[in-house]
C-alpha cells in the first residue's frame, strides 16, 4: 500500500548524482570520438577522405590557384571513417566536443593546398604535394610527363611512343 513511499529512502541514500559540468570534468570516456583534426603538414590533398565521408562534411573547393580541403564540423557525424581511410594518417580523431558557436562560419576549417599547373594546357589538376609524392614513388616515368594533366599526358605519351618507333 505505501510501497511508493520507499522512493524517499532510496533518494536519500543516493543523494545527488549531478555532474557539475562546465565547472567540473565532463563524463567523456577514453574511446570517445570527437571532432577530427587535419594535420596540414601531413595532408597531401589526395581526397580519399572526401570520397568516404558519409555526410560530405569534408569536401574540396577550388579557389583560383588553390584547392581547399574544407571541414565543416557542423555537418560531421563523428564516425571516424576519414581517419581510417587517410593514406597519410594526417587525420586525427580528437576528444573535442565543445564546438558550439554563435556564427555558422566559425564551424568551418580549411586546409589550403596549392595546385600544380599542367605545363602544356595550363589546367590545374592535382595538389603540388600529391604531385611530389607521386614523383618520389614513381621513378620510372620521366618528370616532365608527370607534370601534365591526365589528358595531355595521354597525348604526350602517345606522341612519344610513336616518335621513338
Amino acid at each position, binding site marked *: 500500500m505505501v510501497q*511508493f*513511499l520507499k*522512493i*524517499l529512502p532510496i*533518494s536519500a541514500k*543516493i*543523494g*545527488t*548524482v*549531478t555532474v*557539475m559540468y562546465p565547472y567540473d570534468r565532463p563524463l567523456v570516456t577514453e574511446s570517445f570520438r570527437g571532432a577530427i583534426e587535419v594535420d596540414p603538414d601531413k595532408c597531401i590533398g589526395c581526397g580519399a577522405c572526401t570520397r568516404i565521408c558519409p555526410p560530405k562534411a569534408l569536401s574540396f573547393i577550388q579557389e583560383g590557384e588553390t584547392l581547399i580541403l574544407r571541414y565543416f564540423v557542423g555537418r560531421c557525424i563523428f564516425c571516424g571513417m576519414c581517419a581510417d581511410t587517410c593514406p597519410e594518417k594526417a587525420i586525427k580523431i580528437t576528444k573535442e566536443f565543445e564546438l558550439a558557436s554563435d556564427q555558422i562560419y566559425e564551424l568551418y576549417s580549411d586546409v589550403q593546398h596549392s595546385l600544380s599547373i599542367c605545363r602544356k594546357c595550363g589546367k590545374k589538376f592535382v595538389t603540388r604535394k600529391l604531385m611530389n609524392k607521386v614523383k618520389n614513388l614513381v621513378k620510372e616515368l620521366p618528370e616532365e610527363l608527370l607534370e601534365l594533366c591526365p589528358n595531355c599526358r595521354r597525348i604526350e605519351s602517345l606522341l612519344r611512343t610513336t616518335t621513338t618507333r
Partner: protein
Amino acid sequence: MELTTILAIFLSISLYIFIPPILDGIERKIKANIQTRYGPSTIFQTWYDILKLMSKELIISTEVRYLILPLSISITLTLFLAIVVSFYVASTKSLLLPYYSYAALFLVTMISIHALHLLLYISSANLFSIIGTFRIISIDVANEVSFATFLVLTMVSRYVNSSASLSLFILSFIPLLIAVYVSSRRLPYDLHEAEPELASGSIIELSGPILGLYIYNHLLEKYLLTSIPVALIMLMFELNVGNQSIHLLFLHIFAAIIYMVFSIVSTILGRSRIDLAFKTLILIYSLAIIIWIGVYIFEQTL
C-alpha cells in the same frame, strides 16, 4: 491596537507578497533532491522566472483579449485575502465579527478567485484550454463543497459540543487538509495543466507578463490556501502566546511546513485521470463524513 501589532501585520502582508515564490523555489529544490538531482542553484529561482516573464514581450492574441480583467481582479482579491488573514490572526482576542463569518469570508473569496481563474482559462479559445477548464470544474464540484463541509465540521467539533472533541477535530481536519491540497492543484490533481495530453492546458495561450502575473497569483493563492486552516485552528483553540506578532510568526511557520509536506507528497505521486480523480475524491470525502458522523453519534451516546 499597538504599534508593534500594526508593524507585525504589515510584515505579515509583505511576507505574503514575497514568500510564495521563495517557497516554490524551496519546493523545486526538495523535488530535485528526491529526484537525485541538483535542482535550481538558488531558492530565488521562481522570483527570477517571474521577473523575466515580466520583462518579456507582451503578446495578446485576439481570442484572449479580455483575460486581463479576471486576472487583475483575482490578484486584488488574493491580496485582500492576505490582508484579512493577517488582521484576523493578529486580533484573535478582539474580533470585529464572529469567527464563522471570517471562515465564510475566506471561503467565498477563495471560490471567487477560483471562478476568476476559470474565466481566465476559458477566455482563450484554445481547445486544450477549454478541456482543462472543464476538468477543473468537475474537480471543484467535488472539492469545494467538501472544503466548505469540512470547514464547518472542524468548527462544529470544536464548539458545538459542550466539550471539545479531539478525535472529531482530527477526523474533520485531515479531510480539510486534503481539500486544501486538491484546491492548491498539486500533482495528482493538476489535471488542467496536464502536460502530456494538454500541453499546459488552461494556460497554453498565456505568455510574457500575463503568464508571469498568473504564476505569481497562483503561487500566492497556493500559500494562502495552506495558511487558512492554520489561521482557523489558531482561532478555534484560542491560542494565546503573549504577543500578537508571535501569532503571525506561528501562522507563517506552520503554513510553510504544511506547504513543504504537500510538496513532498506531490513529488512521489503520479497524475490521476479525471474520472478516477472525481471518483476517488467523492469516495474519500463521503467516507470521511460517514466516519465523522459515526464518531459523533458514538460520542453523543456515551
